[in-house]
């Protein structure tokens, strides 16, 4: 059904989506929790910065990443000189781009999940002898779980479809940084590759559809679980 080239690209795309989701999730849980439960100076600014990739053109996000983490970037240059680490145009760049663009979606979902929980459950937990950390892991995290899972699904789906930031920051190198979206884009430029393009498009659409259905289902479950 799929050619070897296509399978390589599909596998790389899934690998990137899975790894970036694993990186996104703890960050999204922490940020969602902090934004839902704490009030601090500059909270709006933090929320704004996290949401930039959601509203800015993805190419702009990629460009900003390049300026920051590229070999000659503000941070990238220092990282390369001191540690010999390079982030642009490699697998790490793919992951970073994916995490950055999917983070706002995941944070929105986790934040809303934590916001739905009555903070008085924390009081009940404390009165039963639990510390704040224990309360978080035994009460708030499980109660927010469907929302967190929904955020993870959205982050995974966003990663699968990521194009602009990836092409700007990670490039379009077959076997290294070429994902499904980038392969579709490349094949669209070549006459006679329509069938390949269609196969990948159908695959992408199906995966996206499944992700959205899963996310919606989990969102409903989130409200159901919290209701006593």
């Amino acid at each position: 059904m799929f050619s070897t080239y296509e399978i390589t690209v599909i596998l790389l795309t899934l690998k990137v989506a899975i790894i970036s989701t694993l990186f996104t999730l703890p960050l999204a849980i922490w940020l969602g929790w902090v934004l839902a439960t704490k009030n601090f100076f500059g909270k709006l600014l933090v929320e704004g910065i996290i949401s930039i990739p959601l509203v800015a053109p993805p190419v702009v996000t990629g460009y900003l990443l390049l300026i920051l983490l590229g070999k000659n970037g503000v941070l990238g240059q220092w990282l390369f000189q001191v540690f010999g680490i390079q982030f642009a145009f490699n697998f790490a760049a793919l992951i970073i781009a994916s995490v950055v663009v999917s983070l706002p979606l995941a944070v929105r979902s986790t934040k809303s999940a934590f916001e739905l929980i009555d903070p008085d459950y924390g009081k009940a937990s404390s009165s039963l002898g639990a510390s704040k950390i224990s309360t978080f892991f035994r009460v708030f995290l499980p109660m927010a779980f469907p929302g967190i899972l929904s955020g993870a699904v959205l982050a995974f789906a966003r990663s699968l479809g990521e194009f602009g930031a990836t092409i700007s920051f990670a490039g379009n190198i077959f076997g290294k940084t070429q994902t499904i979206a980038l392969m579709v884009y490349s094949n669209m430029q070549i006459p006679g590759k329509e069938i390949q393009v269609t196969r990948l498009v159908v695959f992408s659409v199906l995966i996206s559809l499944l992700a959205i259905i899963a996310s919606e289902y989990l969102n409903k479950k989130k409200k159901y679980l919290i209701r006593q």
Partner: protein
Amino acid sequence: MIEFRSIKYSSGNKQFDYSFKSSCSITGIFGPSGAGKTTMFNLLSGLSTPDSGEIILNRVTLYDNKKKLNISAKNRNIGYVFQENLLFPHLTVQKNLLFSSLYLKKNKRKQSILLQDVIELLDLNDLLYQMPRQLSGGEKQRVAIGRALLSQPSLLLLDEPFSSVDCSKRKQIISYLLKINYHFNIPMLIISHHLEDILKLTHQIVLIENGSVTANDYVFNLIKNGETPNLINPKKYQNTLFGSFDSFDKNDSVFTLLTANKSQIKVSNQSKLLSKDIVKGTKIQLCIKPDDIALSLEYSEEISLQNQIMGSVSQIIENETNLFCVVNCGFDLLVEVSQVTREKLLLHKGQSVYCLINAKYLDIVHVYNGVFELSNAYSTNTNQKRLITTN
């Protein structure tokens, strides 16, 4: 013993100032909405921090601003049953009950209250594997009480435990609370808007108004001394008396109880709390409203009322709207009378009277699981729990 020494606390533009002591096994906290009852619970449990003062529980200082001492909520060893239950919705009843077990082991706290005892006492056996959303209001309340008990508290706080349950279930919860208080001997503070409900549990009341304690005494004493605060309506008073089961009359379906001074009280089993195989000597707690008692100067054979208890008028209390007699029948009964009755019977201090009570009006609050030495009523300051033998 619980003691609040000049506890001051401010929240927004509200100021709270609490000073009181209580060493009763059950203390009722009564007051209007927004008076600061829950705030007091939060300060006591460590969920809020006072601005100044001292909080002492069983000789242990929980908070002292001068010594900069503030024991955290998790280490205060106070069980808190919240008004909204706050059962963890993602956990089954059993897991809710066992929530605190992890911390008991960590804190090396002795487990004197066992899961099995709590399950049996609160009839939770059929609920263990259900989720909180599947439970009724009364069932949730029982689980919340059980969960708090299993944290092995040295004090139990109950915030409006009757708010989410209907009238019949209220009675059930009251009975469970009395059972717990007897069985585990844990002091309780109970907030309720309903004076009648509190009075079925205790007559020791801490009255809170506008963020401070305005009265702390037995309601009966407050009424007797004529210091009844506006909030306490004597008409809502519940005379509480104790009797031990003596016999059952099959023809009338009436149970006969004996009071401490061996006078008989006949009770019909309206609430179905008494079973016919009840053991002789079983202690039963009853209550009756002051306006459900009539007075007569003579004993009458030709009367349908089952109870004619002899006593003498020890006090007549008169305020702007009400007239009450305190009748000593070996235990004190507050009886509401009208001015016409007073004049007709020429009621005066020391006069012998009969208290006429319909067996149906005697409300059975709780049947204790055991045979006790009986004290008279709540009006005396003695502890009621003088156990001789238990089943």
